[in-house]
C-alpha cells in the first residue's frame, strides 16, 4: 500500500508555519517571571505537532530538531526549569531556524546544515548548561518519557533479542473511526495472520463513564508484530482506516542505536518516538470542528519558487455562499418560468423577479469577495517579533500596540502590504523612537510606543503607524534635500510638501547607515508599492511629538471604482482614485508649448494635456475640435496632468480582468473590464499613460 504522501505536504507545511507563528507569538507574550502555563502549553503543543508531522513525512532533520526544543519546553512546562530571557531568545532563534528548514524542504532545497547546527548547539547548551534540575543533563531523551501511556509490559525482552524480526506499530484511531464502520479488532485479527502479535492498549484518553460517547474511539494501541513481512504488507491491512487514524510503523530489529541510547534510562517504560506520536495524534481529533484559520503565507514574497498558494476559508462563509447560490438558482428558474410563455400581464412579475435577481447577485458578489478577505492580523502578527528583535538590538525600550487586527482586507492586499509595512515600522523603530535617555530628557516616558492601527473608512482600509518619537525636523529635511540636490534652496515648500520629500528617491536623513534602515532606498519604493495597490500614503509629523503615517488602501483589488469616459466610439475606464477633478475646457485655457506640447491652466498651475484620441490612435467617431471636450485631471506618479476625452459617461464599479492572461501587456492599460452590455472596456493605467506621453 503506497500512497503519495507528497499530496499532503502543502497542508503539512501550512500547519507547520501556523504552528511556528503560534510558537512565536506565544514566546513573545511570555512575561518573564510571571509565567502563564497555558502559554507554555500552547507553545509546547505547536512544537509537538510539528515534530509529529515531520516524523510522519520523513523529515527527520526537523523532527530531531524539534525534539530538542520540545524537551526544553517540557521542562519549562513542568516547572522544572525557569523561563529565562536567554532561554526564550534561544527558542525564538529555533523558531526561525525551523522556519528556514521547512522553507528549504518545501522548496526542495538542501537544508542549511551550518545554521541548523548552530541553533541546535545553542539549544543543547541551554538544555544542558543551565537546567533547572540535575538529572536532565544526563539524558535529554528521557524527558519525553513522562507521556502517560499505559504499557502492560516493559520492553526489556526486546532488548535481549535484537534479532527479532517485525514491526512496532503505533495505531491511534481518531474519534470517528468507529463511525466509519471500522473495527480495530478486525484489524488485529488480520495482523495476527502475519505473525505473533502483542498489543498494548492505551486508555488514558477514555473519559469518565458519564461523558463517554460509545460511538467515539478513545483508545489507542501500541502493537508489536513479529513477522517477516514487509512494511507495505502491514500498511495494506490498515489501508481502510488510513484516513481515520495516525499510524506509525517502525522495525523491531533495526533500531539498535535507539536501544543504546535508552539503556541508561533504566526501568522507565520507554516507548520512544512512537509514544510521543500517540500523544501527538490524539489532540487534533477532539479539536476537529474548530473553524480553521486561513493559511499563513510566510514570507511569500521572499520565496519565489513556491507552490500554488491556497487559502483556508471559514466554513460559515462557504455556507453563506451556498445559500446565495441556491437563491440565485431559484430566482433563475422563476424567471425561466415567466419567460416560457410570456404575456404582457406578467411584466410586473418579471420586474419583481429581476429585482430579486439583482439583489441576490449583489449578495453573491459580496460573499464571494468575503472569501478572499483575511483579517489584517496576518500581517500584524509578525510585528511584535520584529519590534522585539530590533528594539533589543538598538537598546531602545519600545512597546507595540496593535489596534483593529480583525479588520478584514483582501488576501492580495495582505500579501503585498507586508513589505512596505515592515519598512515603515523599521523606520519608526530606528529613526522615530529616541533612545531611553533622550526620551526621559524630553519629559516623555522612557518606553516608546508604536501603535499599529487598522480600520475601515468608506471603501478603504486605513493602516496607521503612530509613534511617539522625535518626529521629523522639517528644517533638517529641507536642508538635506537641498544638499542632495533634490530641490533648489530658493523653492518655497509647504509643510506637507517638505514631509513628502522623504518619498523622493535617494533621500535619507540618517547620519549613519545602519543595517536596519537609512540607505535612502525605501520610502520611494514604499510609496510606489502602495500606489501600485491603488492606495496612497500620508505623513503627519510634529517635531518632538511623533509621526503618524497613514496608508489608505482599497479593500479589494478585484473591484475598482471607475469613471467611464468616451473617446470616439470607444469607452475607457479611469480609476476614480486617481481623478482629482474634471473640467470643461475653453479655448483660452489651452496653451501650446514650443508648438507641440499642450498645457492648460488650472488655478495658477500649468498642467500638461494628454489627448487620449492621439495617444490611443482613435479614429472612430467625429473628431473633437481642439477646444471641445472634457479634461480629466489625474494624478499619476506624484504629478498632475490632464486627459482630454470626448465625454464623461458615468461612474461605476468595475470588475478588473487581466488582459495578460490570454493576451499581452499593453502600455497605458492596466486591465480590462466587462461593461453592462457585455462589451469589453480597457482600464487606463494612469502612471503608465503619463510615462507614455512623455516619450
Amino acid at each position, binding site marked *: 500500500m503506497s500512497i503519495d504522501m507528497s499530496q499532503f505536504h502543502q497542508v503539512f507545511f501550512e500547519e507547520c508555519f501556523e504552528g511556528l507563528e503560534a510558537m512565536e507569538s506565544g514566546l513573545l507574550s511570555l512575561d518573564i517571571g510571571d509565567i502563564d502555563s497555558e502559554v507554555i502549553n500552547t507553545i509546547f503543543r505547536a512544537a509537538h505537532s510539528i515534530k509529529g508531522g515531520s516524523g510522519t513525512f520523513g523529515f527527520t532533520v526537523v523532527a530531531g530538531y524539534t525534539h530538542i526544543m520540545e524537551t526544553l519546553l517540557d521542562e519549562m512546562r513542568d516547572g522544572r526549569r525557569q523561563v529565562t530571557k536567554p532561554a526564550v531568545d534561544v527558542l525564538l532563534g529555533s523558531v526561525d531556524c525551523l522556519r528556514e528548514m521547512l522553507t528549504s524542504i518545501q522548496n526542495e532545497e538542501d537544508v542549511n546544515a551550518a545554521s541548523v547546527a548552530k541553533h541546535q548547539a545553542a539549544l543543547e547548551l541551554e538544555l544542558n548548561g543551565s537546567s533547572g534540575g540535575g538529572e536532565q543533563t544526563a539524558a535529554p531523551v528521557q524527558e519525553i518519557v513522562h507521556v502517560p501511556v499505559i504499557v502492560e509490559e516493559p520492553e526489556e525482552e526486546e532488548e535481549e533479542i535484537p534479532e527479532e524480526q517485525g514491526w512496532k506499530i503505533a495505531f491511534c484511531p481518531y474519534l470517528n473511526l468507529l463511525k466509519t464502520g471500522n473495527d480495530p479488532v478486525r484489524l488485529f485479527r488480520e495482523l495476527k495472520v502475519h505473525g505473533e502479535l502483542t498489543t498494548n492498549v492505551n486508555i488514558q484518553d477514555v473519559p469518565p463513564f458519564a461523558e463517554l460517547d460509545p460511538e467515539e474511539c478513545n483508545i489507542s494501541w501500541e502493537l508489536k508484530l513479529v513477522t517477516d513481512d514487509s512494511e507495505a504488507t502491514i500498511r495494506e491491512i490498515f489501508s481502510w482506516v488510513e484516513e481515520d487514524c495516525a499510524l506509525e510503523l517502525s522495525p523491531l530489529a533495526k533500531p539498535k542505536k535507539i536501544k543504546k541510547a535508552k539503556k541508561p534510562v533504566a526501568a522507565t517504560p520507554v516507548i520512544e518516538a512512537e509514544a510521543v506520536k500517540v500523544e501527538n495524534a490524539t489532540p487534533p481529533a477532539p479539536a476537529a470542528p474548530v473553524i480553521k484559520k486561513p493559511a499563513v503565507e510566510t514570507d511569500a514574497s521572499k520565496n519565489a519558487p513556491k507552490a500554488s498558494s491556497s487559502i483556508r476559508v471559514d466554513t460559515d462563509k462557504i455556507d453563506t455562499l451556498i445559500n446565495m447560490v441556491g437563491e440565485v438558482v431559484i430566482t433563475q428558474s422563476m424567471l425561466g418560468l415567466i419567460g416560457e410563455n410570456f404575456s404582457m400581464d406578467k411584466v410586473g412579475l418579471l420586474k419583481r423577479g429581476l429585482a430579486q435577481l439583482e439583489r441576490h447577485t449583489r449578495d453573491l458578489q459580496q460573499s464571494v469577495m468575503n472569501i478572499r478577505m483575511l483579517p489584517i492580523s496576518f500581517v500584524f502578527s509578525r510585528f511584535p517579533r520584529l519590534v522585539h528583535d530590533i528594539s533589543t538590538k538598538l537598546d531602545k525600550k519600545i512597546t507595540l500596540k496593535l489596534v483593529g487586527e480583525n479588520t478584514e482586507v483582501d488576501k492580495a492586499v495582505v500579501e503585498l502590504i507586508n513589505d512596505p509595512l515592515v519598512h515603515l515600522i523599521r523606520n519608526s523603530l530606528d529613526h522615530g523612537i529616541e533612545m531611553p535617555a533622550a526620551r526621559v530628557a524630553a519629559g516623555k516616558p522612557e518606553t516608546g510606543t508604536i501603535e499599529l492601527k487598522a480600520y475601515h473608512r468608506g471603501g478603504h482600509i486605513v493602516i496607521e503607524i503612530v509613534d511617539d518619537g522625535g518626529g521629523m525636523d522639517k528644517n533638517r529635511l529641507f536642508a538635506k534635500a537641498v544638499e542632495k540636490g533634490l530641490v533648489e534652496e530658493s523653492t518655497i515648500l509647504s509643510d506637507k510638501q517638505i514631509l513628502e520629500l522623504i518619498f523622493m528617491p535617494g533621500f535619507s536623513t540618517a547620519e549613519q547607515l545602519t543595517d536596519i534602515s537609512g540607505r535612502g532606498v525605501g520610502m520611494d519604493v514604499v510609496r510606489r508599492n502602495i500606489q501600485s495597490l491603488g492606495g496612497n500614503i500620508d505623513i503627519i509629523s510634529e517635531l518632538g511629538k511623533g509621526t503618524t503615517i497613514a496608508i489608505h488602501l482599497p479593500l479589494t483589488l478585484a473591484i475598482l471604482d471607475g469613471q467611464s469616459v468616451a473617446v470616439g466610439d*470607444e469607452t475607457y475606464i479611469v480609476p476614480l482614485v486617481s481623478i482629482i477633478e474634471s473640467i470643461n475646457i475653453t479655448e483660452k485655457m489651452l496653451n501650446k508649448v514650443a508648438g507641440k506640447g499642450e498645457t492648460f491652466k488650472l488655478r495658477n498651475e500649468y498642467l500638461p494635456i494628454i489627448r487620449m484620441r492621439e*495617444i*490611443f*490612435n*482613435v479614429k472612430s467617431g467625429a473628431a473633437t475640435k481642439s477646444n471641445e471636450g472634457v479634461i480629466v485631471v489625474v494624478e499619476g506618479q506624484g504629478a498632475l496632468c490632464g486627459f482630454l476625452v470626448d465625454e464623461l459617461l458615468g461612474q461605476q464599479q468595475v470588475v478588473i*480582468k*487581466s*488582459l495578460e*492572461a*490570454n*493576451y*499581452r*501587456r*499593453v*502600455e*497605458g*492599460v492596466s486591465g*480590462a473590464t*466587462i461593461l453592462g452590455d*457585455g*462589451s*469589453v*472596456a*480597457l482600464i487606463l493605467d494612469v502612471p503608465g499613460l503619463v510615462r507614455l506621453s512623455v516619450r
Partner: protein
Amino acid sequence: MSQENKTTAGDDTAQKSSDTTIQYLSFVLGKEEYGVDILRVQEIRSWEPVSRVPNVPYYEKGVVNLRGAIVPIIDLRERFSLSKAEYTPLTVVVVLQTGNGSLTRIMGVVVDSVSDVISVERSEIQGAPDFGTKVSNEFINGLVSVNERMVMLLDVDKLLIIENMDQSEG
C-alpha cells in the same frame, strides 16, 4: 456553419485512432484552405464586434468577452497578409487554445468560414516547403492533400508564441 462545439464531435473518433491519424478542423481564407489540430479548437463563434486595443499590430483586432475571460481576436487574413475581407454575420471566429505547461491561453482567429473535419494519417503529412511567398511558413506544420485540395496545417502554439514575441519587441 452552426456554432456548436466542434471538439466534442471530433473527440470520439480522434481517440480511437489517435496513434496514426490526427483530426484537423479545416477552414478557408480566401481561396486557401488551412487546418488546425481539432483538439486545440475550443469553440466556433460568429463574428461580433471587438473592443479595439490601442497601439498593437493591425492584425490584432481587439478583445472580446468570452464568458468572463478577456480573449484577443486575431485576423488570420491580415496576419498572413492576404487581401482584407469585410466582416459579415457569416464570418467565423475559431477559438483556439494553446498550452505550454500549466499556462494555457485562449485566442480567437477570424477566418472566412470553417469547412470540414479531416482525418489525416501521420504519414500523409508532407513537410512545408519554402513557399517563397508572403505567407510565412513558420506557422505551417506541414501540407496534406485531401480530395485534391491542398490543406496547410497550422501550428497553433507557434501562432501564439509569435504574438507574444511581438510584445517584447514593442
